[in-house]
């Protein structure tokens, strides 16, 4: 039938090896390399324009790579795209369900498109509607669904048959916290079922919650890889943040923070914020609180902050996360349009 899986690819459900994808002059993927073990959740973390969606599009056979190799479930995306499509489920960035059909009609249709007989597709649709809490809205057109409902319907449509590999492209962007958590639960239960999940996200928190391993992507390549913890440690862990009430307190607070933490304090005058990185946030915060009281400084706010994706980015790349991202997106759009 199709190419037998190479030895290296048998254990890896997803492989990308030095993949390059150009849109005109712009290199959307520039040596993308990653390997996802079967049965794990892998987080692809990065800002807009980093190459997350392009990676997903290459893996789902929508785009052919210009250089390098990519495989899904052991099947090469270029030489065995049909087998890749038979193994992969994709929920893209925009809920691609049919607005004009009802929720039930959508799921039955996708079941039929995935090769289910009419009765099996109908039965499967019922199950998924119930599991995703869409039974009440089953006979309403998807057009009238809320953002969260659309995402659920979209995800359900990717699960009408069990995919070996499921790619979720920013599945929670624009969702309210409750829908986001519900979706996280689904991803966890899929992993328990043995499905390999590739998850792209802009949120460190999300990758943190779900992913067994994370790759940080920037300008079309992986710039750091590891677990959420190892990535955070790599950039210095948590920070103490003090918000002072008056500008006059800034200097004294900074000196005090440096004394307690032993780290250099950063002052953002306009926001009246002083920060310093710490290794043990809980102990440090008690000491800082005590020292502030001793100095007679009443802070507006005091807390331990985990690093944000922006900070991870700044630390890893030396440039802020969103610099150039918009321009890259535009370049990609234009290049696609003219090609």
């Amino acid at each position, binding site marked *: 039938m199709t190419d037998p899986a190479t030895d290296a690819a048998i254990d890896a459900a997803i492989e990308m090896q030095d993949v390059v994808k150009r849109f005109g002059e712009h290199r959307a993927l520039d040596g993308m390399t990653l390997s996802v073990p079967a049965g794990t959740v892998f987080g692809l973390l990065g800002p807009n324009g980093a190459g997350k969606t392009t990676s997903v599009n290459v893996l789902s056979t929508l*785009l052919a790579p210009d250089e390098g190799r990519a495989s899904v479930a052991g099947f090469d995306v270029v030489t065995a795209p049909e087998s890749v499509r038979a193994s992969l489920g994709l929920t893209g960035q925009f809920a691609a369900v049919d607005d004009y059909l009802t929720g039930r009609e959508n799921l039955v249709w996708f079941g039929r498109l995935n090769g289910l007989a009419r009765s099996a597709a109908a039965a499967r649709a019922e199950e998924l509607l119930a599991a995703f809490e869409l039974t009440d809205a089953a006979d309403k057109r998807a057009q009238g669904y809320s953002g969260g409902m659309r995402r659920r319907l979209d995800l359900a449509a990717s699960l009408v048959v069990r995919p070996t590999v499921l790619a979720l492209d920013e599945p929670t962007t624009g969702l309210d916290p409750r829908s986001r958590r519900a979706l996280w639960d689904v991803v966890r239960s899929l992993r328990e079922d043995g499905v390999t999940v590739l998850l792209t996200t802009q949120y460190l928190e999300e990758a943190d919650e779900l992913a067994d391993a994370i790759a940080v992507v920037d300008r079309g390549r992986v710039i750091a890889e590891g677990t959420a913890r190892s990535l955070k440690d790599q950039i210095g862990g948590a920070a103490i943040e003090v918000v002072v009430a008056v500008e006059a307190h800034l200097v004294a607070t900074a000196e005090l923070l440096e004394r307690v933490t032993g780290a250099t304090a950063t002052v953002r005058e306009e926001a009246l914020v002083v920060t310093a990185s710490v290794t043990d946030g809980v102990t440090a915060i008690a000491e800082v609180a005590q020292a502030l009281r001793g100095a007679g400084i009443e802070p507006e706010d005091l807390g331990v902050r985990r690093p944000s994706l922006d900070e991870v980015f700044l630390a890893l790349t030396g440039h802020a996360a969103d610099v150039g991202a918009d321009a890259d997106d535009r370049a990609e759009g234009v290049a696609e349009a003219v090609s």
Partner: protein
Amino acid sequence: MTVAVPGVPPGVETRVEAGVARQRGARAAVHGGRLVLDRNLKLFRNPASMAGMILFPLIFFLGFNLIMTRTLDRIGIEAAQFLMPTVVVQAMFFTAMSSAFYTAADRTSGLIGRLRTLPLHPAATILGRLGADVARSLVSIAVLVVAASILGFRFEAGPVAAVGFVLVALLFSVTLAAGFGGWVLGAADPTAVTQVMSVPYLPLLMLSTGFAPVEGFPGWLHPFVRWQPVSLTIDALRALADGGATTVALLRALAVLAVLLTVFVVLASRAFRRVS
């Protein structure tokens, strides 16, 4: 929300071989095309879509008759017979533009990209679209034939020519739909395309033999009016409806439509393969 995704029932697991088989061969293409067609036909069930298919062609036909009957009478032309091919061609424009509208919506929503990631024959999406366009065209043609017959239109050349009339109209419809569809698939902004589709439609229909003979136009326009595809199609339809010398008109229309269809299908397929 219930946490667990229901266990996959027996026989429902992804089977790679079965998935691959659904992407290969003519039978898989037809089967997939029918699934897409089923869905496309469901989209016709809204009032606006029905109006475009049934009401608009009727209104234009009756309107043109009302305006032009006396004028045409004076030069010895029977309006219903003369205008019937024109409004059929116009209705085929409506079909093709609505087809492009649906394609634009499906591209914008990401549905076409999604279909391309499924274990589904790559031709299924296009065949399903084609089937829906043919169905829509047939409804419009049927409505116009009935209405025109009441006003005096006749297939003077018999049933075979009548069938030929319908087939040429369908060929024109499919050609246009492929052209507009490819445009929508390839353009940077598909929604913008749907707003400017009447730019080719209006002049092509107005500057054709549909409403007046070539001689009715200023001299410098004669070559265009005589040889442009819409005129050639209308001339062929008239010949098939009225009888008389049919072969030359028919061959001209078939030749130009075959060339255009080939070009449009190649362009549309190329654009389709780039949609993500």
